[in-house]
């Protein structure tokens, strides 16, 4: 018994704690180093592209002119994908957390997780072989009736391999990530707040609007950001599905479409060498910076609208 008395002179911080704490910090630092490595690699390999000329830039006069249309396409595809995926994901997440009976909810959760498991090549093949042709009649209808809206100027693609189809495929790839995170967050809404709303005579939807969505707002934004990351960076599916011409246009349904940075890398990397290759890597750096900026501003926005509720 007396052995358990406080030993004087024993170190204040235990060795095990010291080692473990530093181990975890070290792991965090490894990630930072890896990320810095990627950034340095992109910068070093991308820098020579500033001196590249039209020969290496697909006819564009300088790097900026080369990258700008790609940035446009990347953002366009990602934004459309998010516009489709986020509401859908919120619906699915809500059905899991607040609408479906528990048993069904877990099955749905499993099925949606399965979507994450489908390889991107398969998404691409499905986009070409199934989704595209199914979209053709819709595009034809849009081109016929709504061509005064710039988005549907047409002429309609006869394969359906448009930026809109590519965005739908991206949306599907983003869906499981956004759903998985938002459903966790919705499930954690304090019961207290939900009951407060219900006790005031709120319907289920009003309860969700008053208690669940505001509570999950920052989480929804993070989830959307993770999804955006995936949408921005997806390579193979877009390369396969999209009929990419590298133009700048808001026309969503024709066979002449903007390309995206990642798809452009996939499409041209194999045949590129020398400065053309540097230019591609520079475009990768631009993509990296875009994600950085988007994340940063999303966080800033969330922070501004968060009235100190997040602990």
């Amino acid at each position, binding site marked *: 018994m007396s052995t358990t008395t406080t030993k004087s002179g024993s170190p204040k911080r235990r060795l095990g704690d010291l080692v473990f704490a530093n181990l975890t910090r070290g792991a965090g630092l490894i990630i930072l180093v890896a990320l810095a490595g990627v950034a340095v690699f992109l910068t070093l390999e991308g820098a020579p592209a500033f001196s590249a000329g039209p020969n290496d830039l697909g*006819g564009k006069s300088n790097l900026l002119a080369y990258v700008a249309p790609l940035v446009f396409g990347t953002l366009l595809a990602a934004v459309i994908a998010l516009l489709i995926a986020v509401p859908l994901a919120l619906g699915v997440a809500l059905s899991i957390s607040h609408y479906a009976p528990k048993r069904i909810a877990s099955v749905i959760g499993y099925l949606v997780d399965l979507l994450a498991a489908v390889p991107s090549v398969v998404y691409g093949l499905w986009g070409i072989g199934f989704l595209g042709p199914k979209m053709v009649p819709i595009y034809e209808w849009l081109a016929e009736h709504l061509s005064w809206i710039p988005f549907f100027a047409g002429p309609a693609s006869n394969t359906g391999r448009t930026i809109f189809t590519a965005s739908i495929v991206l949306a599907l790839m983003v869906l499981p990530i956004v759903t998985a995170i938002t459903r966790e967050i919705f499930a954690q809404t304090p019961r207290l707040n939900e009951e407060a709303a219900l006790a005031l005579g709120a319907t289920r939807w009003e309860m969700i609007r008053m208690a669940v969505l505001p509570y999950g707002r920052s989480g929804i934004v993070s989830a959307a950001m993770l999804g955006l990351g995936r949408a921005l960076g997806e390579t193979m599916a877009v390369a396969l599905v999209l*009929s990419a011409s590298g133009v700048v246009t808001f026309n969503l349904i024709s066979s002449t479409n903007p390309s995206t940075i990642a798809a452009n890398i996939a499409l041209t990397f194999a045949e590129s060498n020398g400065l053309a290759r540097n230019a591609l890597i520079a475009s990768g750096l631009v993509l990296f910076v875009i994600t950085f900026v988007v994340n940063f501003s999303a966080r800033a926005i969330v922070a501004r609208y968060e009235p100190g509720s997040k602990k």
Partner: protein
Amino acid sequence: GSEDTTTLNGAGSSAQDSAMKAWRAGYQKSNDTVTVNYNPAGSGAGVEQFIGNSVDFAASDSALDADKGEIDKAKERCGGVNALEVPSYVSPIAVVFSLDGVTDLNLSASTIAKIFDLKITKWNDPAIAADNAGVTLPDLAITPVHRSDESGTTKNFTDYLSKVAPKDWTYKADKVWPTTEGEAAKGTSGVIAAIKSGSIGYADESQAGDLSQAKIKVGDAFVAPSAEGAAIALEASPVDDTRAEGDLAIKVDRETTVANAYPLFLVSYVIACPTYDSAKADLIKGFLSYVVSADGQTAAAGTAGSAPLPASLQTKAASIINTIAAK
């Protein structure tokens, strides 16, 4: 690592992938312990990796380019000696289309150029009708389909158009499709998949599948794509004599009018060094010799639908490869 003595690594042209499968299988059958890997990463990647000493040999849809410094870099990689370059694969490129009720179509180079440049937009355009008496052409929009990725096929196709119909095709030959109009698809299989009724595209003849193939105008006749036709056209093309010894680059004559020649074809090369570490030298010599041998060429013709090298070229190529030696 390339110091492995039982493994040969190559990379490059995806057009040659099917042929490479045949060659690797054929070679490995008689050399059981050897593994030959081939990464169809693309000609550019193949050359890049070859120059960077990442692979033992490369396959490329275009000969090394002096302007881009590839010849010099390859020389550096090979320890200061010029790299070897021989044609290994010749494949006709078919102009493929899908049109209900129409399977035979004659097209001149200038018509093809106008179609792909969207100057002709309907199937019943008089320019098409003129070459196709007796065929009922529908009043249907034409959707031209081209490659969205960079490729040797595109380069050869645009080369053909720019040489044979320079007035109607004002762009220069390039791996990248020069215009933004039309449907774009990744890879030959992508182009094939994107061809719906009313579409027209270009692809390796062997991959055309069920799609109809147009005859192109050579001289005054219309010639259907075929391996034999491509071989005839190749034989009519001179070797580039500005090249160093051991470099068998071909200057393809697109404008040939030799009977039955089909000048719209792709010629692809294998690139290697004249010297290697002792063990590797024999391996690579053995493999590439097989590639250009009659056996190898027949095997490729069987699986890839390519045209066997004409006998004269075959001998020249074999003798160049025979010079590969240990350091």
